[in-house]
């Protein structure tokens, strides 16, 4: 049985070319990039070349790129870093109800440390209203953090609009672009952001490496303090192999992203249309158009997500769900609740996320198998009113 992976938003395979690019930096060119002798300088050269590639990709200067261990670290650095650096200036931080936990949890921590966290709502498509951002700004506001594209429902926020409002008011603006970088254009000047988080493994780079764009002049307290690496924004011996891999992923994205986006949009729409047609009582979650090219998130009445996921897995198809049953919190997805879904529908949601190696055949197979799975589960559901 061919396994079909449709959870690219959770993580992507590391591109074989990325893996290849990393290899010399394990044993041959293994030096510490902070060392002055030749072993160190060849690592340093690779590091700075990688920084240049990443900077070019998002229209930044190399010195504005700080390599991190991934999206969560980037987000934590942005939030806590600005909070502790600007504590004297103000204490209000504005964010949204659909942020990833790696923004939400630092927010909770900061709330305990005396910061005021304003969590903006979203509409039924998952959009934050730029006007709500404007209204929430006051002279105590030190940071606005709104994600670029949502990891669950794929909704793309009007970042540029919000960025301009913040820039105008002189308030720092961070965007968690972990789901966007490598998939959508993310030029920082266009987005008008001061801070931008990304994670390698979400776009065919290695896990355990990401970056944070920090606009020149932005005040930030480093999260990981110690040595002089990364212009003192992030201590720790540089993960040269990982960083070279990340840069390779960026290089590949620069070439393939646009075409891939078109292909995935087609496959995505075929999958959405096919499922909504074949499965009654199903509804698409997230914005119908302003959504990631690879994201399909659908709720199915009367059935629970994990049981669908599990049946798909038995057929070799990997997906994800917003059901409580797959999280340790036993709460269904807060994003789905935030767009107004009743809890039982949130429990009955499935996210298919497509990627570089997804084909029409994969979509066809899902369309063949999945309706049967739902039908089987509905037949044993006490909530199901029967075929109408």
């Amino acid at each position, binding site marked *: 049985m061919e396994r079909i992976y449709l959870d690219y938003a959770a993580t992507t395979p590391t591109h074989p070319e990325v893996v290849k690019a990393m290899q010399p930096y394990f044993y041959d060119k293994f030096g510490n990039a902070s060392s002055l002798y030749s072993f160190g300088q060849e690592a340093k050269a690779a590091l700075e070349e990688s920084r240049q590639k990443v900077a070019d990709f998002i229209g930044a200067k190399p010195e504005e790129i700080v390599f991190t261990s991934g999206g969560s670290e980037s987000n934590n650095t942005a939030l806590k870093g600005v909070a502790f650096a600007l504590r004297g200036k103000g204490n209000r931080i504005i964010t949204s109800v659909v942020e990833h936990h790696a923004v939400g949890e630092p927010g909770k921590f900061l709330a305990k440390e005396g910061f005021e966290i304003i969590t903006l709502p979203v509409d039924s498509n998952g959009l934050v209203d730029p006007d709500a951002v404007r209204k929430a700004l006051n002279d105590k506001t030190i940071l606005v953090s709104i994600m670029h594209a949502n990891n669950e429902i794929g909704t793309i926020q009007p970042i540029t609009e919000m960025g301009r409002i913040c820039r105008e008011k002189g308030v720092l603006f961070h965007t968690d672009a972990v789901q966007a970088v490598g998939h959508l254009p993310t030029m920082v000047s266009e987005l008008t952001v001061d801070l931008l988080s990304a994670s390698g493994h979400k776009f065919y780079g290695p896990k355990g490496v990401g970056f944070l764009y920090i606009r020149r002049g932005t005040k930030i307290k480093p999260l990981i303090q110690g040595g002089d690496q990364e212009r003192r924004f992030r201590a720790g011996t540089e993960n040269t192999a990982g960083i070279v891999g990340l840069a390779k992923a960026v290089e590949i994205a620069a070439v393939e992203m646009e075409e891939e986006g078109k292909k995935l949009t087609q496959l995505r729409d075929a999958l959405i249309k096919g499922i909504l047609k074949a499965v009654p009582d199903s509804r698409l979650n997230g914005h119908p158009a302003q959504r990631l090219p690879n994201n399909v998130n659908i709720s199915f009445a009367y059935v629970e997500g994990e049981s669908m996921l599990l049946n798909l897995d038995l057929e070799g198809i990997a997906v994800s769900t917003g059901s409580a049953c797959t999280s340790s919190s*036993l709460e269904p997805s807060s994003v789905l609740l935030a767009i107004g879904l009743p809890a039982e529908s949130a429990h009955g949601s499935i996210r298919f996320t497509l990627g570089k190696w997804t084909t029409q055949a994969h979509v066809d197979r899902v369309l063949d198998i999945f309706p049967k799975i739902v039908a089987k589960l509905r037949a*044993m*559901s006490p909530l199901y009113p029967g075929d109408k």
Partner: protein
Amino acid sequence: MAETPFPYSETVMDHFRNPRNVGVMENPSGVGKVGNPICGDVMELFIKVENNIITDTRFRTFGCGAAIATSSMVTELVKGKSLEEALKISNKAVAEALGGLPPIKMHCSVLAEEALKAAIDDYRKKQTVK
């Protein structure tokens, strides 16, 4: 493909794939319905009782893999048992019969126990009413 795709035992997976006694029972002796769709699981258990013995069972479940497997298992475990014996079946016994459950799934076995108790309760209430 990995041997055990899920953090579930083989017995759980077997009952999930091929749940026993699924469906609605015509004229059941007792019905128990527990859980809440808001929490993500609802179990409905039907029992047929003859001479104080549970002779047949059916269930319908809205819920995760563990919820379906525990429902299936409890319907198997009680068949042929007296009501008193059936009431002694704890959630742990259900979980054990399934070869164990992940910790965060133990509440499913509790639900199965509760569904059974509710069904027996329902049966007894109907008896006293008569």
